[in-house]
């Protein structure tokens, strides 16, 4: 793929009738260009599993449609060596009034099978979808899960050297999803080339050899899925400029006498960072300037997650109450070192300075700085504490007594 650009003409006023064309022959030039893709270039090697990620509207689907040949590119070129099949949507051409067989035939033919191949594979398609007993039912009477299963099943029965797949992992119940994952592993083992477009970073990490990050039509970066995943999270949770500007008239309280000048986070190397890695040491720091004399002030900071839950609070009040005397004009650097066990996401820090005892605040700057914690294996819990887990057999049976069910080894990163 070389320097692919794609712009859509977005008509400001769309002329759709002959009459209007006749009356206003020149007006139809009223459109503005919307650039959906700007000079995107990358190579995909044979047998590679590539993920394309990006926020909504970043051009992922447009890119996929260009690769699939549905849109014509304006500039550049896409070169493909091999038979390519694109799955932009599951169940293309499905007709609700027909039973499974006809729909498999239509869908399979649309995706590039010959009708004969499609009907030969029909049985295995039906079995994979676990829909044998509903074979004769019109598919309008299928549940949405059944439809998706049928569609996915057709998709994996179309053999192509290169597969383009758009957002289809989150389908079906858990058992079927596992089957889909197995299929993806199989594709990987068969050394097929797969290009997967998704929001699901865990899927990208699990399957992809490499990932491409798009943002507003530009290719931001490409590389190892884990690193791209972090960048993607930063794009997602990083505050857009407008919001940052709005945050300048922030919530600030306190009786005065001290001023929190700035605050920041530092990563494990001691450099200021807007992103922290999970399970690494990191540091919060704030610079405070005093405008009146204060004895033993209290410094504190609270971290809130995106749901405004307070997840972490640190204060000098309990650790060392004697912080010393500060004269007007003096400056203090307050820092908190901690091991980052916060769940991935965005956090706001609220630093505060108070008089001794902590009752009267001198300066509180609500949500003064934010930081993104990266990591794609979110457990859904507030914290990701390091832990060790183990399973031991307790029945103490001889090994030959029962067939041992071997558990699939979990892929850990």
């Amino acid at each position, binding site marked *: 793929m070389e320097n692919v650009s794609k712009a*859509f003409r977005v008509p400001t006023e769309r002329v*759709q*009738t*002959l*009459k209007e*064309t006749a009356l206003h022959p020149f007006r139809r030039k009223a459109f503005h260009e919307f650039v959906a893709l700007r*000079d*995107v*270039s*990358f*190579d995909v*090697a044979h047998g*590679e599993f590539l993920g394309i990620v990006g926020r909504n509207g970043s051009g992922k689907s447009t890119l996929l*449609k*260009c*690769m*699939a*040949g*549905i*849109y*014509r*590119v304006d500039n550049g*070129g*896409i*070169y*493909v*060596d*091999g038979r390519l099949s*694109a799955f*932009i*949507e599951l169940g*293309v*051409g499905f*007709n609700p*009034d*027909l039973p499974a067989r*006809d729909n498999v*035939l*239509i869908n399979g*033919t*649309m*995706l*590039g099978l*010959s*009708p004969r191949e499609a009907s030969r594979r029909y049985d295995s398609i039906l079995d994979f979808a676990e829909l044998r007993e509903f074979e004769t039912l019109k598919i309008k009477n299928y549940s949405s899960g059944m439809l998706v299963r049928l569609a996915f099943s057709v998709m994996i029965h179309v053999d192509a050297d290169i597969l383009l797949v758009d957002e289809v992992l989150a389908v079906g119940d858990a058992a079927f999803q596992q089957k889909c994952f197995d299929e993806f592993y199989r594709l990987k083992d068969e050394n097929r080339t797969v290009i997967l477009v998704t929001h699901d970073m865990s899927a990208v990490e699990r399957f992809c*050899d*490499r990932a491409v990050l798009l943002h507003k039509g*530009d*290719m931001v*970066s*490409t*590389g190892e899925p884990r690193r791209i995943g972090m960048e993607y999270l930063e794009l997602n949770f990083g505050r857009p400029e407008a919001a940052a500007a709005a945050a300048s008239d922030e919530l600030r309280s306190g009786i005065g006498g001290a001023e929190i000048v700035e605050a920041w986070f530092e990563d494990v190397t001691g450099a200021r960072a807007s992103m922290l890695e999970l399970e690494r040491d990191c540091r919060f720091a704030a610079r405070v300037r005093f405008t009146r004399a204060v004895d033993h002030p209290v410094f504190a900071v609270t971290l809130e997650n995106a749901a405004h839950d307070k997840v972490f609070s640190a204060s000098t009040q309990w650790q060392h109450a004697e912080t010393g005397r500060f004269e007007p004009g003096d400056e203090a650097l307050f820092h908190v070192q901690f091991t980052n066990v916060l769940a991935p996401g965005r956090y706001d820090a609220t630093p505060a300075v108070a008089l001794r005892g902590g009752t009267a605040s001198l300066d509180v700057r609500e949500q003064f700085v934010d930081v993104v914690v990266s990591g794609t294996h979110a457990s859904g819990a507030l914290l990701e504490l390091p832990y060790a887990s183990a399973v031991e057999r307790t029945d103490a049976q001889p090994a030959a007594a029962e067939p041992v069910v071997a558990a699939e080894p979990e892929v850990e990163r």
Partner: protein
Amino acid sequence: MSVETPTEPAPPAAPQPARGPRISGPVAIGVDARRFFNLTRTLAVTEFKLRFFGSALGYLWQLMRPLLLFGVLYVVFTHVLKFNSDSAYYPVALLSGIVIFTFLSEATSTAVTSLVDREPLVRKVQFPRLVIPLSVVMTALMNLGLNTIVVVVFLLLNGGSVHWGWLEIPFLLALLALFAAGISTLLSALYVRYRDIRPVWEVLLQMMFYGTPIFYTIDVIGNKTIERLMLLNPLAAVIQQFRHAVIDPSHPSLHSAMGGNWALTAVPFVILIVLVVVAYRYFDKEAPLIAEDL
């Protein structure tokens, strides 16, 4: 834009080996003729099945429409208006005209909106775009095939006989199909841009119904010049020749209706070919943009 390729050290300056052909974007026909045919057939058969099995009486309804129209026109013209055609087998001639016109009307008016109706397909899958209007014509053609059998049966019931002229049937139906395909191709592509093509075409179809010898035979016109002008319309030409070859040789053949002038006889065919070429050219030009303009 920096591209990391950690897996393979590909020197960017060297010509890349075996990167395959360039993806061209959507096309009208494409290179794979077999796939084109398979797709058209699958879509057409599906549509036909839906109509066939979609309702309780299925095919009967497909048959009822031309037959009802036939019944009304027959009663009106032979009993109410005492329309006096001296041609043999007027009822069969009437039915054949209606069946042929029904085909053209069904094919083209469904095809006009076909690209827009099939939007999910057009936007989600890469396939030759011409498949869509042509599959509509194909579905109508299946109907026409069945209806032609009805015409033939009707002819035999009315005392007609099997004769060599029937060999022209496939040829005439092919010409008719080509005519319908040309119109469908052109209109479906136009409709993507101009949505008022549909009412315009409905009016034109109405006009064609009256301006073509369907419920009358060409000889009732009386004026040779007007007759010949009317027969320049490929639809009229096909109907005329059908009546001559299939129903009864007492209907003048296209050639003799044109006054025995071969050049004049060729004009409807030239019109047909020009239409098909223009339609294809336009569709081919629009094909890459259809998915975006819908």
